[in-house]
């Protein structure tokens, strides 16, 4: 077991717990930096997808994992981000302008949704965000003069000062964006703003007693969340080349929700675990499909069914997701052979009632 000696208050706000942890992250970063040199294009494009899902997941994680608000409509922000970006590229706007603009538009939309949904929680909020996503989907479908409707919208290839980025350059671009996003989100979470999110998640009553404005804080969480998911949308647009309204359906929203829950609510490393999982899942399902007898393997609803089933299993058996499992494994090895099975069992909470006492 390692103990951290703190000699100065700044240590508490450092991003990394100690040198060892920093070295691990640095090693991981160098690894992904070097990977395209040795790996084939398949691994490279899969990883690019992981980066993009991680960015979208980071957005949703702020909302679900840190502020305790649910959203079943985050595909709408992906969609608005992707379409805004593609349309502006089409008008000749350079990407370093159109990406921030798309993010601003998404966060404005996020604030609008939050104002409509602020007094709702749980299932009502889920339904309200779902309805919002359906409205966005309808608009994208029917506003064909601008979005191309069901015929699709061709996305201009990524270009920097007249140079077209190839897939490896694009890999590095996404990696850079992901690194910046992770840095910013981690910064937020170790500063007062992020603490306010967590306070709202854990106890609204207490948060108010601490002087936190619930409505403003929730609106802010929605805005940041929408901006990041919109950012992921702009990157996805490049990867997909063509945008269709159906690419951003309810299934996408559920996939995103699955990402944060399976990855582990309330952890940023969970986002990356979840993104890897989501990226590998379609291939996984395809492989399993081949083993299954045709009568089951060709069922049309197999994918959503698997999603749903996995989600339920995780919620029952490992509510802290892959990240929770990972932490337990690390603890097991660091304390071997002293690890006790019940170490991480939560103590029974003291009685809490609905009444404000």
């Amino acid at each position, binding site marked *: 077991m390692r103990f951290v000696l703190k000699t100065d*208050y*700044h240590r*508490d*706000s450092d991003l990394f717990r100690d040198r060892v942890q920093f070295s691990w992250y640095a090693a991981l970063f160098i690894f992904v930096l070097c990977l395209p040199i040795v790996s084939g294009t398949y691994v490279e494009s899969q990883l690019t997808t992981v980066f993009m899902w991680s960015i979208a997941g980071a957005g949703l994680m702020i909302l679900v994992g840190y502020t305790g608000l649910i959203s079943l409509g985050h595909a709408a922000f992906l969609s608005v981000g992707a379409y805004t970006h593609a349309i502006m590229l089409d008008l000749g706007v350079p990407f370093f302008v159109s990406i921030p603009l798309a993010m601003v538009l998404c966060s404005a939309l996020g604030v609008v949704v939050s104002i409509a949904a602020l007094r709702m929680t749980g299932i009502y909020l889920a339904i309200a965000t779902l309805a919002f996503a359906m409205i966005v989907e309808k608009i994208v479908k029917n506003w064909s003069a601008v979005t191309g409707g069901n015929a699709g919208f061709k996305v201009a290839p990524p270009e920097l000062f007249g140079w077209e980025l190839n897939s490896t350059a694009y890999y590095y671009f996404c990696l850079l964006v992901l690194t910046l996003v992770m840095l*910013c989100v981690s*910064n*937020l979470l*170790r*500063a*007062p*703003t*992020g*603490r*306010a999110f*967590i*306070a709202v998640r*854990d*106890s609204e*009553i*207490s*948060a*108010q*007693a*601490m*002087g*936190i*404005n*619930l409505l403003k804080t929730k609106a*802010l969480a929605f805005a940041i969340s929408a901006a990041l998911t919109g950012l992921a949308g702009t990157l996805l647009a490049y990867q997909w080349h063509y945008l269709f309204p159906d690419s951003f359906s309810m299934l996408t929203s559920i996939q995103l929700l699955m990402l944060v829950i399976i990855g582990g609510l*309330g952890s940023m490393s969970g986002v990356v675990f979840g993104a890897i999982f989501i990226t590998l899942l379609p291939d996984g399902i395809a492989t399993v499909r081949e083993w299954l007898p045709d009568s089951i393997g060709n069922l049309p609803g197999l994918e959503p069914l698997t999603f749903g089933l996995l989600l339920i299993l995780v919620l029952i058996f490992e509510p802290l997701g892959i990240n929770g499992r990972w932490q337990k494994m690390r603890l097991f090895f660091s304390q071997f052979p002293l690890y006790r099975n019940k170490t991480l069992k*939560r*103590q029974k*909470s*003291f*009685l*809490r*009632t609905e009444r*404000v*006492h």
Partner: protein
Amino acid sequence: MFEVVRLSKHFGGVTAVHEVSFSVNEGEIFSIMGPNGAGKTTVLNLISRFYDVDEGTIQFAGEDITHAPPHEIARKGIARTFQNIELFERETVLQNLLIAQYIHRKTNIFSDLLFLPRVRRQEAQSRRFLEDIIDLLHLQRYREQQIHSLPFGVRKLVELARALCLKPKLLLLDEPSSGLNPEETEDLSFWIEDINKELGVTIVMVEHDMNLIGQVSNRVLVLASGRSIALGTPVEVKDHPDVISAYLGT
């Protein structure tokens, strides 16, 4: 400094608080006692603005706060604890206390996103301030522990510490001694006096323990069925005939 005038609150047909008036002087320790369901917690919830006031007014530091939004109360200098403990369960003690620094922050969302040097300085400053409160309440051992792994008595202390980290002028305590053993209650009475004397915080405390009230408080208000039936020093109130009959249920 703090005054409540003819405060009333109804829940449907139930009158939880009926025309209760009292005023608290600066530097005082003021207790509220009364049988179960007398409306003590409701009075605190009205002051914290968790409940809307039906009738009456609340004045604090020369300002009418009867209709202030609940998140403004802390900024005005009123902090509180809860009868059933409302902490951020999944966070460490330190994080719980740091949240109380939110109202004193001078950074905004943009500087937080970039974690600019002034955010770092502010964090270190907050930590230094928290350390004083941690020392005052002897919470050093628990700094990095998560709330759900702490015993009940420690949680009560953490909640008290968190309220103090708001740097309040007025502290509302809802049954601070409930669930504590006699030794812990003894410690609590010293701490309450320290907080009052050293930090100069005015205290309004809902309490059942007559001993604790007698030890620390200047005056006591007795509520029964939402009405105030006696107000005076602990000694005066203890022998008041209405109080005795309220507790005996006649």
